[in-house]
């Protein structure tokens, strides 16, 4: 049986003014990523007119890219004088890799909440500890199965739920939802943010053995033992 001819990557002009072009990866491909990108640039696979120059935005779709793959991509683009400035991806792993390289990353619009009033409609589950320098950001709520270490950040438009120890920085309701909450098995963050409110984490050892949650109460962030209910409604 013949394999389907691989569909290539495309270059689409960017309208937001943040860059020259979007580099859009195909949903799936037999061709390895570097070759795919080389081809797109060499063949001038341009949708619309214009010269690619300067800053390029990457639409990685559901590609799960690690640090070395992204670094390689950055290098290929760099060789042609192109700078990778933003990555749009639906994969938490790709976001973590982007953060590792200091590249801004965003979630595709489709997974962004329709309005800040209902940010909890989407739940992203991420497995693994966030280490210093990592930044995980989600459009809906996030459930992290792991720790958030000092120096790492986790933020979500909805709730931040950490099945582990929260010792870095957490920001719930980062698009303005002040009903969002932060829950962790051990809540000892450096800093907490909910919507526009900021609080430094509590000092001293946490009470052993029960989860805590942070919410905005009367305009300020308050920490209490976690309520025994799942905070996300269907």
């Amino acid at each position, binding site marked *: 049986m013949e394999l389907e001819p691989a569909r290539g990557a495309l270059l689409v002009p960017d309208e937001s003014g943040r860059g020259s072009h979007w580099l859009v990866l195909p949903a799936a491909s037999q061709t390895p990523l570097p070759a795919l990108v080389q081809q797109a640039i060499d063949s001038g696979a341009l949708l619309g007119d214009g010269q690619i120059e300067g800053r390029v935005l990457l639409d990685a779709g559901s590609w799960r890219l690690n640090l070395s793959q992204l670094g390689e991509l950055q290098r290929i683009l760099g060789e042609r004088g192109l700078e990778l400035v933003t990555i749009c991806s639906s994969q938490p792993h790709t976001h973590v890799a982007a953060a*590792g390289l200091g590249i801004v990353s965003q979630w595709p619009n489709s997974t962004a909440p329709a309005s800040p009033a209902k940010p909890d409609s989407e739940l992203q589950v991420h497995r693994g500890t966030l280490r210093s320098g990592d930044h995980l950001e989600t459009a809906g709520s996030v459930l992290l199965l792991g720790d958030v270490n000092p*120096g790492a950040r986790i933020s979500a438009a909805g709730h931040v739920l950490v099945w582990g120890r929260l010792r870095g920085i957490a920001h719930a309701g980062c698009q303005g939802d002040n009903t969002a909450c932060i829950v962790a098995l051990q809540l000892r963050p450096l800093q907490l943010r909910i919507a526009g409110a900021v609080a430094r984490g509590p000092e001293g050892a946490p009470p052993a053995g029960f989860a805590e949650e942070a919410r905005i109460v009367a305009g300020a962030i308050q920490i209490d033992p976690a309520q025994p209910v799942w905070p996300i409604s269907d």
Partner: protein
Amino acid sequence: MAATSTRYILICSGKGGVGKTTLTANLGIALAKQGARTAVLDADFGLRNLDLLLGLENRIVYTAQEVLAETCRLEQALVKHKQEPNLALLPAGNPRMLEWLQPDDMRKISAMLGEHFDYVLIDAPAGIEGGFKNAMAAAREAIVVTTPEVSAVRDADRVIGLLNSEGVKPIQLVLNRVRPKMMANQEMLAVSDVTDILALPLLGLILEDEQVIVSTNRGEPLTLTGNSSPAGRAYTNVARRLQGEEVPIIDPSKERQGFRAKIGRLMQTKIF
């Protein structure tokens, strides 16, 4: 004669000056003494000093740079240690090398070394930039060195994240410059504070020891002279554990007590 199971180990830290090069030199000698053919690769092209610590500075003729450029053979560039012929150093090129060296070059070099050695220890530069990434490309597993200080632990954590995303495995921890008194008085992060955050198996615990500085200045690693100072023994134990031997970790808070007290100082190994 190819060694099929060569172990390529990156020695890295994130933060500078925590003891990577000292560990590489001592571990290299200790492994060689234990009969393993060991190469140490100085991947700190900017601030090389592995040659100095091993006392081999004046015997360098060629470097990794010439090997890559194919102006000499690997055997010509390798500097064999006088007293420990099982150990060889592959010197870094000159600092300008940084500009053209690529991860692929490092992979090439380490593959060449793999044909002659059981262990390839790669002394990484501080930081997480290009130099570190080049060094990482040559490695399969890693030893992360840190001191019990908040900033060093934070940087180590960052490096572990990068190693994880590159699939470098296993990653083990060496805690260096431990001061038992300060730890006992809680003036310094405890061993458990560090292992708690970094969540890595502890491969060794090395005390703050002025013999390290003395040996550095002589160009004779502690493990070479069989020096029985606390750090010398700790480095030897790191090598033994790396070779798969079970050697219990010594409780630092009891190290400074009298000789007799030392008999009861073995920690419950289950803690680590």
